[in-house]
């Protein structure tokens, strides 16, 4: 999957490339290759670092509005400087390591976590010309790295010899393993439809418009909508966001695996959570919302990375909205939701996608039939499984943990 | 027409779908399950009729539709289905009889709480059988074949809470499995020899001249043609399924299942499968006729097995006292007739008899079922009787079936098909024994059917159940009437005067010839039938027994023979005594080895010690003892070492493996054996 030619696109579109070329142009030849890579890394760090900073602020503001209070508004104009104040506070705090703790793991956990979650940014196409690393199996890469992040949560929980932290570690393992499945299974239909595992290819597969105004995004197909929903729910769980934030359930586990962390390490965990959120949202945008494509052909003059950012921010605000709205689940409800609802639904959805791509040739009167069958395949199981899910939420029975 | 070929897969698919839906319906969904099953069978029947029409349009053509199932490395597994008069006729027969039996079961099984499951299994059974019929690939045929076996297991053991039923199901499954092993070996060998399992593949199918020609060139070391060996192996499977001697033992026990099951198994589906299989691969089976060097021809074996089975079944049926068992043994003997026909080379006659037999045997079984249903599951003919007055429809239809089976001349279908078989047998060059066996079986058949009719329907009721039995509802009697019509009318499709069936099946026009040629044989068999019926009437009809425990007149005439036949010629006991004891013998033999051979070796070594010790007496004593002690000590140590190796420690085993690997690798490396 090679990126399209840089000509025949607007100046604004090519602005990042021009900037990069100018910067590397300043360097002697041999250093340019390194500089290219370095620039990408720096760009990612800077952009998402800032994004993280302002996301914390935005989250607190939004939560404030929802809970009918102003939220931080003292530091700077509308509290815009609040995140930097927090950062300074975190940096200057003492870094406490419990005596009984396992020092190596205790130190490694946040480092590994942040490293992995940064790695996931490397395969997301942010714009028409902005794909840091283009490889053939980048979707697989994304999820492989994402799976690795679970390890560090466990390390954190284990290393800080603390009952709550250990419970949190167990829960984190159970939860992350459980939701790994629906996450991956909801991606498989997209891979099936696009016929490729590379993010660039997936985005390219969603280009174009039907009748000139309905974009060919996967979310506008029955299976795509279902997969998108499953993906977002699993993403909530994978990034330990409310209502799935059991590992750090304040009310029962103090702060879960973060209990023994303070200062900058805590900040790293915090950052990693937001990075995971951003990465998963970016992947969702890439897989389902047409990546950097503009929703309408008339709007293509706006540069692609702008469109990507808009979609990304929309999803992120969705995350925050959910957090502000929904109460936390119980651990058994959590696993039941994963195994009895999401996984079967995702499997059936895979079948739906297969049907959809098999009947790609149906036209004329068959087209409505195709839609009807797919919608039935999506809605029927949803209703049936949903009914079974809502029944029998009995008293909690914990076997382990 | 081609569209019909492509749609042929629907015929087995519909009942299969019904079975799937039946499996998913809850137990209370009785009406739904039955409705789905019957609707599916009706649809299959309609499709089969269409298929038959398009097949009869071009009788000599073999229309097939092959498709690749999946790749196996470089090879490709291909399946397919086949449309020709044979398969089409079988489809119609199976689906029609099956449909009637389904309708009958509506009434017969209404009291059973597992109604839905029953129809699910029945649909599975019918689907599997239809799959066997339409398959164009021996692999697909084998798959459906095994499905038939499975469904029969499920159905015979449907009342699994009865221990006899469970045992019978197991017996049927295992016995047929014995044959199927042979079948499978035959398939593997055939694939190895020809590289294909498709029957017709536009020149490269195993039933087509080119492949058969190549196959004919192969012979084993013993001079036996490979095609003969393969045919015999395939015949093993056929013999197992359609209850040929010596694998017939499962069939009577299969009567433990519900009566519709017995009807389905013995009339339309399971037992027909074997005969159909041989008829289907007839080009292959009969190919070795041209090889004069062949010591034995496959068809000869088939003919003799068939003859033996026909005679044996008929003889045993004479002395059975269970209504359904009599019919079961008569089925065995009729199947023997069909095999006999195949063996003497007239597969058309075999199929003709298969079709007619399907109708009148289904009729007989369903009529028996109607009797049993009315008499509250009383099956002992000694305790029945006098039902002719109470159940007129059943009586009439049963009589029709009985006459068709007995081969009463001219009006009934059984007569014509049996005539065709006997005619073919009389023209067989190899031997005349099969003909004589067939003729003898004719007498016996007429005799025991007359006996059955008299015992059940004549005279006066001999038990309270029989006394208050009354005619069943229409849902049970209507299928009987339809089947009765069929078992009369079907005969006229294949009379010598108008050989419609023969010409359609073979594809070339068979010249009609008058009834008079070969009329002597016909006269003879008519006389024989008359003799049998007369004897039966004389023994059982003139004076119907008064009470249930009155002695059987035939038993009074020849008690030893009667009891011998009544015990089914003691064949089950024979098997138990031989096969069952074989492993006991094996155990005893190894025990003997242990005791004498190895022990003998020990004794021999001891003697050696004695010999060396016998140089002089001092050394003698010490040497002898030393010899003994050291030897036994060595044995003991060896044993201890071995048992010590079984440390139960996984890692110990792993270590052993590692060391062994090192040793072997060193051998390879240093030995330089590459």
């Amino acid at each position, binding site marked *: 999957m090679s990126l399209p030619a840089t000509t025949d696109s607007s100046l604004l579109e090519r602005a990042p490339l021009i900037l990069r070329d100018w910067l590397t142009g300043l360097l002697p030849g041999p250093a340019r290759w390194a500089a290219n890579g370095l620039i990408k890394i720096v760009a990612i760090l800077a952009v998402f670092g800032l994004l993280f900073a302002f996301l914390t602020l935005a989250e607190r503001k939004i939560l404030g509005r929802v809970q009918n209070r102003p939220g931080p508004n003292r530091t700077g104009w509308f509290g815009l400087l609040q995140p930097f104040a927090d950062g300074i506070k975190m940096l200057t705090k003492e870094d406490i390591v419990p005596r009984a703790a396992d020092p190596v793991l205790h130190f490694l956990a946040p480092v590994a976590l942040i490293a992995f979650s940064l790695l996931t940014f490397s395969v997301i196409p942010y714009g028409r010309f902005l794909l840091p690393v283009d490889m053939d199996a980048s979707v697989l890469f994304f999820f492989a790295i994402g799976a690795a992040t679970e390890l560090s949560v466990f390390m954190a929980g284990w290393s800080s010899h603390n009952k709550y932290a250990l419970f949190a570690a167990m829960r984190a393992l159970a939860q992350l393993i459980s939701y790994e499945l629906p996450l991956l299974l909801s991606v498989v239909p997209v891979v099936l439809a696009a016929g490729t595992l590379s993010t660039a290819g997936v985005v390219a597969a969603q280009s174009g418009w039907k009748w000139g105004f309905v974009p060919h995004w996967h979310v506008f197909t029955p299976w795509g909508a279902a997969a998108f929903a499953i993906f977002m729910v699993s993403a909530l769980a994978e990034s330990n966001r409310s209502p799935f934030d059991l590992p750090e359930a304040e009310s029962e586990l103090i702060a879960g695996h973060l209990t023994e962390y303070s200062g900058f390490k805590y900040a790293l965990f915090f950052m990693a959570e937001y990075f995971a959120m951003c990465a998963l949202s970016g992947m969702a945008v890439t897989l389902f919302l047409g990546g950097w494509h503009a929703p309408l052909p008339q709007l293509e003059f706006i540069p692609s990375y702008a469109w990507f950012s808009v979609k990304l921010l929309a999803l992120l605000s969705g995350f925050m909205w959910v957090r502000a709205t929904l109460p936390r689940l119980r651990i058994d409800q959590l696993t039941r939701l994963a195994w009895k609802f999401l996984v079967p639904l995702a499997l059936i959805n895979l079948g739906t996608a297969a049907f959809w791509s098999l009947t790609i040739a149906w036209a004329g009167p068959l087209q409505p039939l195709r839609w009807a069958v797919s919608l039935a395949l999506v809605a029927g199981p949803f209703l049936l499984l949903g009914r079974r899910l809502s029944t029998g939420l009995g008293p909690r029975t914990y076997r382990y943990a | 027409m081609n569209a019909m070929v492509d749609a042929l897969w629907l015929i087995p698919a519909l009942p299969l779908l019904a079975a799937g839906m039946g499996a998913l319906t809850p137990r209370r969904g009785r009406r739904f399950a039955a409705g789905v099953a019957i609707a599916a069978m009706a649809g299959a029947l309609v499709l089969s009729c269409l298929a038959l029409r398009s097949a009869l349009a071009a009788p000599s053509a073999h229309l097939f539709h092959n498709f690749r199932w999946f790749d196996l490395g470089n090879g490709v597994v291909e399946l397919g289905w086949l449309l020709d008069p044979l398969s089409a006729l079988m489809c119609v027969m199976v689906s029609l009889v099956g449909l009637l039996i389904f309708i009958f079961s509506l009434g017969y099984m209404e009291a059973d709480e597992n109604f839905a499951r029953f129809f699910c299994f029945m649909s599975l059974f019918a689907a599997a059988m239809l799959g066997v019929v339409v398959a164009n690939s021996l692999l697909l045929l084998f798959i459906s074949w095994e499905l038939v076996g499975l469904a029969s297991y499920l159905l015979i053991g449907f009342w699994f809470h009865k221990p006899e039923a469970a045992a019978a199901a197991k017996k049927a499954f295992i016995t047929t499995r014995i044959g199927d092993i042979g079948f499978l070996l035959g398939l593997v060998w055939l694939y190895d020899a020809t590289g294909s399992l498709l029957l017709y593949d536009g020149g490269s199918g195993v039933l087509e001249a080119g492949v058969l020609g190549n196959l004919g060139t192969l012979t084993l070391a013993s001079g036996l043609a490979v095609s003969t060996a393969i045919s015999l192996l395939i015949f093993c499977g056929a013999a197992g399924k359609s209850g040929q001697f010596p694998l017939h033992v499962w069939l009577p026990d299969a009567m433990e299942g519900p009566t519709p099951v017995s009807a389905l198994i013995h009339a339309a589906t399971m037992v027909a499968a074997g005969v159909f299989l041989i008829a289907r691969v007839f080009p292959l089976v009969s190919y070795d006729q041209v090889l004069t060097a062949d010591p034995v021809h496959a068809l000869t074996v088939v003919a003799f097995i068939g003859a033996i089975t026909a005679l044996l079944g008929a003889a045993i049926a004479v002395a059975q006292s269970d209504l359904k068992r009599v019919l079961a043994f008569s089925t065995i003997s009729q199947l023997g007739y069909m095999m006999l026909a195949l063996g003497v080379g007239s597969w058309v006659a075999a199929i003709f008899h298969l079709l007619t037999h399907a109708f009148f045997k289904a009729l007989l079984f369903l009529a028996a079922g109607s009797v049993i249903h009315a008499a509250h599951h009383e099956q002992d003919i000694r305790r029945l009787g006098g039902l002719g007055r109470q159940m007129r429809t059943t009586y009439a239809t049963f009589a029709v079936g009985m006459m068709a089976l007995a081969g009463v001349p001219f009006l009934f279908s059984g007569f014509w098909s049996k005539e065709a078989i006997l005619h073919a047998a009389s023209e067989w060059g190899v031997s005349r024994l099969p003909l004589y066996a067939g003729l003898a079986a004719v007498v016996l058949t007429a005799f025991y059917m007359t006996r059955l009719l008299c015992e059940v329907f004549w005279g006066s009721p001999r038990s309270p159940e029989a006394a208050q039995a009354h005619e069943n509802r229409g849902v049970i009697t209507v299928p009987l009437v339809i089947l009765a019509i069929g078992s009369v009318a079907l005969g006229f499709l294949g009379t010598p005067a108008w050989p419609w069936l023969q010409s359609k099946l073979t594809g070339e026009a068979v010249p009609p010839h008058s009834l008079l040629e070969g009329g002597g044989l016909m006269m003879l068999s008519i006389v024989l039938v008359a003799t049998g019926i007369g004897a039966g009437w004389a023994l059982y009809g003139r004076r119907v027994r008064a009470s249930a425990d009155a002695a059987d007149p035939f038993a009074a005439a020849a008690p030893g023979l009667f009891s011998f036949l009544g015990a089914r010629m003691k064949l089950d006991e024979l098997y138990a005594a031989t096969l069952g004891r074989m492993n006991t013998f094996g155990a005893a033999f190894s025990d003997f080895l242990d005791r004498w051979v190895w022990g003998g070796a020990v004794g021999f070594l001891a003697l050696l010690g004695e010999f060396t010790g016998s140089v002089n007496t001092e050394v003698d004593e010490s040497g002898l003892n030393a010899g003994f002690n050291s030897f036994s000590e060595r044995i003991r140590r060896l044993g201890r070492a071995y048992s010590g190796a079984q*440390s139960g420690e996984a890692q110990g085993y*792993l270590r052993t493996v590692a060391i062994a690997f090192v040793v072997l690798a060193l051998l390879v490396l240093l030995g330089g054996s590459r």
Partner: protein
Amino acid sequence: MSHLQLCLAFSSVLFAVGLTGALARSNSILVLLGLELMLTAAIMNFIAFWRFGPSHAPATGVIFAVFAIAVAAAETAVGLALVISVYRHQRNIRLPEANRLRG
């Protein structure tokens, strides 16, 4: 030493390490992990021969590596289940004590 030989040496050393661990440790989970390591080392050879081997089958090496990884996953699942049930029987997971099959 050619690339292929380097890779094979790599995998065989890894194999030996796994074997040693599986033999030395008494904790059954560690033994299982040693076996996993041996399996991984074996899988590496598929890739090594696919990449540097004399004959180039299009993708066979890769496909068999994928299959083998799947088998490894299944093996681990069953192995861990066995460990857990062993733990349920004898309140620890020391393998040398799980020797009730001693002859």
